């Protein structure tokens, strides 16, 4: 069923080769300028009425953000995830709050946590989770949370910290030398 749907959509939209993860879950990359029309077609014609989630993945090395729009068709028990790649340098997405009002919250979060702007989305610049945050958006890959906490918080005297990896190695594989643990 998903193969038929993708073939049908490919007649009208530029889609990459899909990843048929499971019988009920497919990932496919779409073009940013076609996203809105594609979402409307999926929602109104193909029955993908439920917006499961909207989130971003930071591909720092490639200089891209991946926006994932996951839609579900309950009657057919199929989930289709649309990936849209946008440049990290100019991270602007198209708002879809008028298609799904709940997208407003997702877009507010993406604005705050990844610094991806969605012009026109209601209250998109309002603080969502963080308060008075002036640093880089914290969910970007180049935000170093360890360095931030070392800089911001003081170490409590008398506290012992183990390197988690070394500690687990000792606990799980006490007899093995580091080289042999492969």
């Amino acid at each position, binding site marked *: 069923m998903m193969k038929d749907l993708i073939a049908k959509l490919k007649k009208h939209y530029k889609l990459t080769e899909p*990843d048929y*993860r*499971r019988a*009920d*879950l497919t*990932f496919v990359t779409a073009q940013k300028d076609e996203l809105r029309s594609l979402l409307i077609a999926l929602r109104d014609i193909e029955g993908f*009425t*439920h*917006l*499961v*989630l909207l*989130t971003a*993945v*930071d591909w720092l090395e490639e200089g891209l953000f991946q926006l*994932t729009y*996951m839609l579900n068709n*309950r009657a057919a*028990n199929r*989930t289709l*995830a649309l990936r849209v790649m946008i440049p990290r340098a100019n991270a602007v997405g198209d708002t879809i709050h008028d298609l*799904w*009002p*709940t997208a*407003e*919250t*997702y877009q507010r979060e993406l604005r705050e946590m990844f610094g991806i702007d969605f012009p026109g989305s209601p209250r998109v610049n309002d*603080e*969502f*989770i*963080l*308060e008075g945050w002036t640093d880089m958006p*914290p*969910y970007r*890959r180049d*935000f170093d*949370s*360890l360095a931030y906490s070392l800089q911001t918080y003081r170490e409590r005297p008398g506290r012992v910290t183990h390197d*988690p*990896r070394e500690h*687990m*190695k000792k606990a*799980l*594989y006490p007899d093995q030398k580091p080289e042999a*643990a*492969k």
Partner: protein
Amino acid sequence: MMFNLKTDRSQYPQPGPDGKLEIDLETGKYLKLWQGPNHPGITGNMSVELTVCGDEVVAGKTHVGYLHRGFEKLMERRSFIQVFPIVCRVCVPEPDFNEYCYAAAVEELAGIKVPELANWMRTLILEMGRFNSYMMFLGGISGALGLGVVGQWMTYVRDLMLDRFEELTGARIYHMFILPGGVRGHLPDGFAGRMEEVLRTAEKYLADVEKVMFRNAVYKRRTKGIGVIDPKLFEPYGVTGPNARAGGVAKDLRKDAPYLVYNELDFEVQTGKDSDIHTRVDVRYRDIHQSIALIRQILQKMPKDGPVMAKIPNVLHWQIPRGETYIKGESSRGEYGYYLVTDGSGYPRRINVRGPSYTHAMALLEHLIPGTNISDVAQLMVSLHTYPPEIER
């Protein structure tokens, strides 16, 4: 409506040219009222900023962030096995769903097949977690209406179930029992018998709840016909779980997209039709009885012996090829899911938690609040059954 008094509406805010209410606090007609973050009528650590006119709420904004710990970011710095003790912390009352969704996502991307008995054990744990979560819900909704005794009974019953959790997993709240590859152990000897005792006690207390809550005139008046969610809003606002089932839409992933061993179990999707607070509580009340029946059924049908853990790679050198997947399940509140992206390294590239409260407590609640009475906000919010950590993972 019991008190259909015609109020003078001239004092209330009028819609401006863009259709939105014009609220000018300078006029002195309106008052800002904070419900939360520390308030008996709020679910967990969140708050609702209410703008009221008289005793009617004209606008509401949800504020979260009081317990943000950056779970999703923390997970990106940890190897696949190190993530496992973090995931359960995302939801206190029902942590097992996080463990299951994360474990299943890792197993799918790493190509690990879970033994059959482990799937039965996972289903058992998830139903026990659902039962506990509903116990907290019943206590919450009765507490929001000033019926404190139900909260005390439910805390007691939940505690009995926590004893069973402790016996099975060694922990009461964060069980960390479901891990990638299977579960940590078998059922202890005589577990089914002791579980049966807990379930019988629970049924006795639930019968009392029926008497003091559902047959209580005050309770009925304060919940019937209040906080109605129009079923047309279910899709635009991403409403799932009991909130949608109370509006007559039989959304239940245990039936719609069966996972674990749900297709081998016999149960019905509980629905209502009025979509108000009373129906939402009633649907959950019936779901508790169904959870009890499911626990009995699982204990009866599950294989008696077999492995519970598949072989997993050396966890210190575990790398998963580039890929992405989404695992979902029906938690006590609605669709719960984990979106996992891997990039071929020993760390997850991105983990996103899809909690039902994300849509219910933000966009939906803000849409429902205008027009309600101040005293109805508490039960309206509790009836959506939201847990804030899912919003601010």
